[in-house]
């Protein structure tokens, strides 16, 4: 890196920070709320991307993780009156533990079954949220009071933003540190080939459990932030539609890319707001957008931007990112007995 680049970097970061801090000056209550949701979905998007994009585990449980985090926050803050700086980490840690536990049976499953079982788990959790009335208050949900810090109440979207933004940035920083570390590299190697990973002395089961746990941690924290943003935790918020949003963020934003998670969160949060004007055609337009982007940019928007040199390749995935396989038999390569490993016939 040359000198000018070194001098430029703090300037860029400083400018970016100032711009982010100034956002509430430009927004009204509605647009600020949308911005707040973006910060929440960045965390959630990063969470699923760790599992799906980096570790290559096709799991659908993140909406459930988000729900668990949101309920923990609601219960701790409203019923026990705990402050946010206890609730948010607690939501993350407890969810991470649940996520790790989920990994144990999940690890033995082939990709498609993993997707189905985690999907079933997510739907089952919604049912639990509805029916475990003593804890979750059923379909009526639990209200979440505005967080406060030494008497300063983050009431209203503009104020809440100054809680969400640092949380979001911290989580992004944390994710980039983890993904660049040994463990992050292990995720990618496992995704590419478990055999290669084993040959390199990577404990595959342990690494997968860490991936699940980390992903759940981000999901839990995201759920906590979501709870503060929306103010009422309802079971229906964590159903199939939430799941679709998460996957769309990762796939459309770009798998195995932190920039992708940010782009995806921005897109998936604002797109439905832009589509409001289309009234009854909203759904059709939304679905069409999903299909078209996924077909024409299967590497997501971040992938496309990288290809055109607009985004730099992320250090971590350079050289290992899977290129289009020329001839493919999807889902099949793992599922058939190998044929053609020759031995003599007498």
């Amino acid at each position: 890196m040359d000198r000018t680049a070194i001098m430029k970097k703090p300037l860029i970061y400083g400018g970016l920070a100032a711009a982010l801090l100034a956002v509430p000056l430009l927004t009204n209550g509605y647009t600020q709320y949308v911005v707040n949701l973006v910060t929440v979905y960045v965390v959630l998007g990063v969470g699923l991307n760790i599992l799906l994009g980096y570790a290559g585990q096709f799991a659908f449980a993140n909406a459930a993780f988000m729900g668990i985090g949101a309920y923990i926050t609601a219960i701790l803050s409203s019923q026990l009156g705990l402050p946010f700086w206890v609730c948010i980490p607690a939501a993350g840690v407890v969810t991470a533990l649940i996520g790790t536990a989920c990994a144990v049976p999940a690890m033995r499953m082939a990709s498609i079954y993993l997707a189905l079982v985690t999907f079933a788990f997510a739907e089952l959790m919604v049912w639990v949220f509805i029916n475990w009335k003593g804890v979750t208050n059923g379909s009526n949900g639990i209200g979440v009071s505005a967080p406060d810090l030494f008497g300063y109440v983050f009431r209203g979207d503009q104020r809440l933003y100054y809680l969400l933004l640092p949380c979001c940035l911290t989580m992004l920083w944390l994710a980039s540190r983890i993904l660049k570390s040994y463990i992050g590299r292990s995720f990618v190697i496992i995704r590419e080939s478990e055999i290669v990973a084993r040959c390199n002395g990577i404990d595959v089961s342990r690494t997968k459990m860490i991936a699940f746990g980390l992903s759940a941690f981000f999901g839990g924290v995201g759920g906590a932030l979501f709870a503060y943003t929306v103010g009422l935790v309802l079971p229906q918020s964590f159903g199939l539609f939430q799941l679709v949003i998460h996957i769309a963020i990762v796939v459309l934003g770009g798998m195995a890319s932190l920039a992708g998670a940010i782009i995806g969160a921005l897109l998936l949060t604002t797109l439905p707001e832009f589509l409001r004007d289309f009234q009854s055609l909203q759904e059709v337009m939304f679905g069409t957008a999903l299909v078209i982007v996924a077909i024409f940019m299967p590497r997501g928007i971040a992938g496309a931007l990288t290809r055109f040199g607009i985004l730099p390749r992320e250090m971590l995935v350079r050289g290992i990112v899977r290129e289009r396989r020329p001839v493919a038999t999807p889902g099949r390569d793992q599922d058939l007995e190998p044929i053609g490993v020759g031995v003599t016939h007498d």
Partner: protein
Amino acid sequence: MKSAMRNSILAAALLAGVSSAALAEPGVTDDKIRIGTFGPLTGPVSIYGYPIINGAVAVYNEINAKGGIHGRKIEMVYEDDACDAAKTRAAVKKLVHSSDVFAIHGGTCSSAVNAARDEIIASEVPYMVMAMVLDSITSPVAKNMFTTTQTGTLDGVTMVNFVKSIPDVKKVVIVKNTDDWADSHLSTIYPGLKEAGIEVAADIVLERNASDATTQALHSLEANADAVILVTYPNETAVFLREAKKYGLKGPFVGASSQMDMLAVADRAGGIDAISELYVSSYLLEPVDGEKMKEFSELYAKHFPNDKLQTLSFYGMSGAYAFVDALERAGPDLTREGFINALESTSDGFAGPAYCKISFSPENHQGCTEGHIWAVRDGKVVAIGETWPQ
């Protein structure tokens, strides 16, 4: 919490002072009043979107056609919330902060509206419920939030009172959904039954979108009860009644007001004889084809000639009449404060197709509290009063 409330009240007072002096009220011009509405215009529950909203819009359109209120015409702004809590908040915020509406008349899904309650209160926008039925919207009373729809708890009371009036009922079966809407009904049904000494012989879950109710019907049959209480939506009611007929389960069946469109239930259950023993609670004057409903049916059909007439078409009208009445009384110098005061002074107001007179006071923002029972007689749905018919 308290200090914040005081702050906001202070700010409100300040703002009110400023606005009356110099600033025009948001959403009000010399010839227009902008009213926002929101509901599930898309998504799985969109069946409760436009069909309900259009009833209210028909009332507003009719007023506009007659020259408006104090020379101002009502302009509607629509937002979709898909009955999703996060989206409901976004919809309300957009109406308040971006669309600058004067008042909001909207909200169909109970818990989703609840998620936006603090937002509505903070915005101080006069708000009227379109169709949601939870008590929490008006209790505790918030200065700017009103409803004319009958809550689930009151609906439950109507049902229980009717069950009590049926001769020789000792045991009942409850078939229920598990959502907040059902819970609000059950919160008065259980104590009501207990007080009357009626035993709940079986308490059966029938989830939303169930395409089959075989086990529910068989459980009910086994319980051998004197009546079946149905706290379910129309589709599931139809599915249940179909199975009931198949397995020979006898009524009377007492349904919630969700099943008011009895002919639609009959249609889905496979014929009018499937509902011959169904009694449903209702907060409308009469069934859709009733004599007293003619005025309102024609009104709806005039403004939305392509829509199907159903009971949903009338849900939103009472709130619209309450709004229009209060706008008239608030006078030509329209302010939110004046409008809210006018609303609060509503007494025995016209409720259109609803079975009540609307009364609000500073202590009570629940405008309607009466319901009655409908049943089928000679192939037609008729109102039969509040008790078991002799």
